[in-house]
């Protein structure tokens, strides 16, 4: 039976069309992922060279004044790239891979944007995640919408019903052949991706793999459900495409618009202004206005004298730090709002498999918002460690060569995050089961 069904399926136009479409777009998407990884590598090499070079050059000019030297020097923190991110590039094209900062106020440097073509950002990357979320369901729809109605419309259904009592079984087998084909392509592409992009078979990779399988299973049963209604081909095509548009375009966009408007982040702009003013106004105030706050934050520097009538580095870097402190609250509020956006989106996504798939892909690939926020947190800690290690030497008016500059290379940050299999799989699994049950009930009437 399966043998014959396979044979007839291989003869259809749609089989060849889907095969060519999915394989070619799939391979393109993997190559785009590859290019993305290569670009990351190039960026990192450039950043490392930049830091080395700029330390060397500035040392020549300002060897005698460490405070001035560190005014110019920039230090790099790089998010260690993971090859798995090429499957789902996510937000990592918007958010920078690395940040190079001076030890002056951090708030004014932390959010510096990446250079990327906004047209590309708008249209989004054609990564494997996109192919899985958007194109695979379309192929499933194209192959199954007339599973039953085609037989009915060609008149073969009546012949078939006369010959077999297991009509539902026949439809089911026909469906299994088609779904099996789509799954085979998915597995092939995933293996290709792991080979070309050199992704290790980590838990995260298997999680993306399983999530993709489950996601396609969801679409398969959705198509099965439509078939089980036994409507004509036009109705099925119309309904399935409408569902596709609703799930992959309309609904997520509606949620996104809602979340963006509900949680607007004017705090970002406030923090930006407050940081500047918090620093600059100190120039025109008594030195105490700076030093009280600075000593409170870092009592270990109390022993240093601050001359009232002239410039001193402790005062200068104290003022810089005051800028960060002035923006601290707004900056925290901003982060909170962004987390809120994330939480709400994830919650709603539990009910919508397309959104859930996209967000979990990004999460597992380390290209989501949370992973960037974690990077910013690490950057803040890195900045503080740098400052504290340099402060004493600056305030002691040491020459630049007391510091071993060789050790100040660009640093890597590696994110550590766990995920829960239950949270990942359960929502879509439940939805899939419910649809299956309804579809099965419909078919019993056959």
């Amino acid at each position: 039976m399966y043998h014959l069904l396979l044979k007839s399926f291989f003869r259809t136009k749609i089989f060849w069309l889907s095969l060519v479409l999915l394989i070619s777009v799939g391979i393109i998407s993997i190559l785009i992922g590859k290019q993305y990884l290569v670009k990351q590598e190039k960026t990192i090499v450039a950043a490392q060279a930049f830091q080395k070079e700029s330390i060397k050059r500035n040392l020549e000019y300002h060897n005698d004044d460490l405070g001035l030297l560190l005014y110019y020097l920039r230090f790099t923190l790089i998010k260690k790239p993971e090859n798995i991110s090429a499957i789902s590039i996510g937000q990592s094209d918007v958010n920078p891979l690395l940040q190079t900062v001076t030890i002056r106020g951090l708030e004014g440097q932390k959010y510096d944007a990446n250079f990327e073509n906004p047209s590309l950002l708008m249209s989004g990357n054609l990564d494997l995640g996109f192919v899985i979320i958007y194109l695979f369901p379309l192929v499933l729809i194209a192959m199954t919408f007339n599973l039953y109605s085609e037989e009915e419309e060609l008149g073969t259904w009546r012949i078939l019903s006369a010959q077999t009592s297991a009509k539902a079984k026949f439809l089911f087998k026909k469906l299994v052949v088609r779904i099996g084909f789509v799954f085979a392509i998915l597995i092939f592409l995933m293996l290709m991706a792991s080979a070309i992009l050199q992704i290790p078979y980590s838990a995260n990779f298997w999680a993306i793999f399983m999530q993709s399988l489950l996601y396609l299973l969801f679409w398969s049963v959705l198509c099965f459900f439509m078939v089980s209604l036994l409507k004509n081909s036009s109705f099925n095509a119309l309904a399935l495409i409408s569902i596709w548009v609703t799930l992959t375009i309309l609904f997520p966009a509606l949620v996104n618009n809602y979340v963006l408007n509900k949680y607007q982040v004017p705090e970002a702009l406030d923090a930006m202004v407050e940081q500047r003013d918090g620093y600059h106004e100190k120039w025109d105030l008594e030195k105490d206005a700076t030093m009280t706050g600075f000593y409170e934050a870092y009592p270990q520097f109390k022993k240093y004298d601050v001359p009232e009538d002239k410039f001193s580095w402790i005062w200068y870097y104290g003022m810089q730090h005051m800028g960060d402190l002035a923006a601290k609250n707004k900056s925290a509020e901003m982060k909170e709002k962004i987390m809120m956006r994330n939480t709400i989106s994830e919650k709603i996504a539990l009910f919508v498999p397309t959104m859930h798939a996209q967000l979990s892909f990004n999460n597992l690939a380390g290209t989501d918002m949370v992973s960037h926020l974690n990077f910013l947190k690490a950057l803040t800690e890195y900045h503080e460690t740098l400052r504290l290690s340099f402060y004493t030497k600056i305030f002691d008016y040491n020459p630049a060569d007391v510091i071993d500059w060789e050790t100040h290379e660009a640093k890597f940050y590696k994110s550590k995050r766990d995920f829960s299999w239950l949270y990942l799989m359960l929502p879509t699994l439940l939805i899939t089961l419910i649809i299956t049950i309804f579809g099965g009930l419909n078919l019993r009437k056959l």
Partner: protein
Amino acid sequence: MRKRIIYLLAGQLWKDAFRSKVMSVTLGLMIFLLIFSTYSGWENYHDQNYTRDIIQDQVQQSWENNPDKHPHRMAHYGSFALRLKHILSVFDLGMENFVGNAVFLEAHKQNTVNFSEASMSTGLLRFGDVSLAMLLKVIVPLLIFYLGFASIARERQNGTLKLLIGQGISRKEIVFGKWLGLWGLSLIFLFSIFLVVLVFLLMESHDTSYKDSMLRFGVLVISYIIFFAILSAITILVSAFSKTAKGALIKLLGIWLLFVIILPKSLQAIGYYLYPTPSKIEMETAVEYDLVKQGDSHNPDDPHFNALKDSVLLAHNVKKVGDLPFNYGGFVMAKGEALSTAIYLEHQERLYKVYNKQNNLERSSAFLNPYTAIKNLSMGFSGTDFKSFLHFKDKAEAYRYKLAQDMNQLQMDFIPNKGKEGPNKISNDYWKKFPPFEYQFLSISKVFKNELISILALLLWSILTVFGLLRLSTNLKAI
């Protein structure tokens, strides 16, 4: 062709449409989406611009309230430019969420425009936005296909097409009647959406001149009317040349997916693949390299700046910089600023050229894909395209440059040279005299120029449409 017959056939299509279930579901959905996107578009525009206006004013006030000080400190104090949204962003969000919103303007340094909505969003942003324009560009075309796929194919399947022709109605009349009917139907959606936009234009006070925004609005309305005419014609033609209504529907759905989803995204991706851009750090490295090569004002032994010093001393016939009639530090910074800005802008220009190359693949596909034409045109005239953003960025940079150079000039004029007697600060009246940052949107003639390809493509498509309907209707098969 008889007008009466065409109207009759068009009217029949309307009657059929309003009787169908698709239409009632559609209308319900559209009303919901219309309300939602109107509200969210307005809220977004209104709230964001409100906040930004306030902050821009605050920025100016704190600038003016600075006490007497050294002008170079003011150059570092700097200013901010906040990007205001165009009133028509209520209609088409375009790239609004993907470009930055605020930039810190200070001496010596071109900062990035930060805090784009995308940088503060989750991965959901990639599913797109719901805006009034999105309904017209993405959803209504699908509806046109839904409502029109059966128009001729089903008549033929039912045998009624034969009857119509038998009654002396010409094939042309049938095709044009159906086309007009479908087009008219799509205009219901179009006019209800543009009516909402018009209300906004008239009610909401905004920064652009009234004439300018009305002109932009007019262009948008006309473009979308043409776009829908093209889509309706495609629907009718596909329906006319498909054996069955089912076949027509499948083809139309394929066309929709290809036009709206697959082609634009793939071409943008391919453009990006073909023309790689340097990362930010690579560009910064290149800028610094050029700067060091040409003259580094931070380097005490820099040949460029030493030669400059010698020539200035010679020209003023003095031995030491301290004897110059102006502040030498200010002079060097002014020269340095001019040099570094020129180098930076040169690199930036090069980067944008690559962006343009990346985009042009998709942009010129408008000749194959009317959706691309309307997409770019709609963004352009709504002031939400990349060019509008660049215009803002250029203005902000020009303001930054003027600020830095004015402060350098003040330093040259009023601050004594090292070792000379005199005050080290100047009156804060000078800050008050410096004008605030005020942004004017791109002029409409510029937008026409930017969108020339899209306009040409749309016109070409409309000629093709009429031509196609005329030519192909004669070949319409009755059975």
